[in-house]
């Protein structure tokens, strides 16, 4: 990066994000296919990828629509699921605080898990990069185009095979979520939180507006945090004893 220009930084950001783009392809296709097989119109799916641009909350919204959830539950769930972006933004803030407001808005709107991971690595290697915001835009913009293109392919694919719905395509969503959750269950508090949330979501599935989902999520979080604190205290007590 001896002769970095805005364009070369933009390209480098996009290039370094390619592995993340590949990883997002199956999710984007599954999302597009599920929209086409469900009650929403094809263009709703593209609009959601263009305007919301948040894979997990888009898939979760489809699950909630299928469960006849109310608007408020869908919006609240989106909020809870996307709260993690605030943590990402807080971590990246020192590197963007000097930029003009329109740059900060642009980069914030395009911020995803993947770009956060790429930018964390970039700022670690180049803490003083003057063109870091172009690199950021390359990574985030690349993810955006990638997500929207593969959404469209999923939408068109499922629209071309209308019988696909009767095959039980909604199970693809369950399989996708399982594949996301299982690798995260690395300790007892997270496992307990997941089991409590799952069991209560089933028991409370009759609550109006699908509120049982939110209540079960909160209960799972409380159990997980209680166990994590109990563990931390237990570990400290053991250290004191030795």
């Amino acid at each position, binding site marked *: 990066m001896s002769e970095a220009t805005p364009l070369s930084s933009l390209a480098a950001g996009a290039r370094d994000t390619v592995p993340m783009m590949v990883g997002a392809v*199956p999710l984007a296709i*599954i999302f597009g296919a599920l929209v086409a097989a469900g009650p929403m*119109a094809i263009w*709703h799916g593209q609009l959601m990828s263009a*305007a*919301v641009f948040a894979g*997990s909350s888009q898939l979760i*919204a489809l*699950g909630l*629509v299928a*469960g006849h959830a109310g*608007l408020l539950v869908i*919006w609240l*769930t*989106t*909020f*809870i*699921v*996307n709260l*993690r972006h*605030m*943590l990402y*933004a*807080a971590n990246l*803030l020192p590197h963007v*605080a000097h930029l003009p*407001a329109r740059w*900060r808005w642009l980069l*914030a*709107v395009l*911020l995803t898990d993947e770009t956060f991971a790429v930018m964390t690595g970039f700022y670690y290697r180049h803490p003083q990069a003057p063109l870091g915001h172009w690199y950021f835009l390359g990574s985030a913009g690349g993810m955006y185009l990638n997500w929207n293109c593969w959404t469209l392919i999923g939408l068109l694919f499922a629209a071309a095979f209308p019988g696909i719905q009767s*095959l*039980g395509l909604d*199970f693809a969503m*369950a*399989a*996708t*979520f*399982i*594949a*996301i*959750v*299982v*690798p*995260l269950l690395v300790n007892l*508090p*997270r496992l307990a939180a*997941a*089991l*409590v*949330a*799952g069991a209560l*979501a*089933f028991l409370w*599935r009759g609550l109006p507006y699908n509120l049982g989902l939110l209540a079960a*999520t909160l209960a*799972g*979080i409380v159990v*997980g*945090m209680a166990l994590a604190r109990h563990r931390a205290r237990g570990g400290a007590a053991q250290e004191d004893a030795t």
Partner: protein
Amino acid sequence: MNYVLMIAGMAAVTIATRATIFVLGDRVVFPPLLRQALDFVPVTVLSAIVVPLVVAPHGAGLEITWRNPQLVAAIVAVVLCALTRHQLLTIVGAMLAFFGWQFGVLS
């Protein structure tokens, strides 16, 4: 349901979570308790969606039986993912188990 309104609200909420810190700067502080709670969000939300879909796929009562292809394939997915930690392999394997069970074993 008005899907455009739903999408507009989701977009507004998502942009708020992404842009608040970048736009307002250091004026936002994070209590450590919230930070810890966020760590549990992915596993709880996704489990809360998946479990009812799998154990009661028709929205009625429990279907804990080998005749429930969603349940059989979900168990396959959990085992595959725990053993391989590979996302795409888990999804493909679970879909094969689902279709195989539905059309091969049950029909």
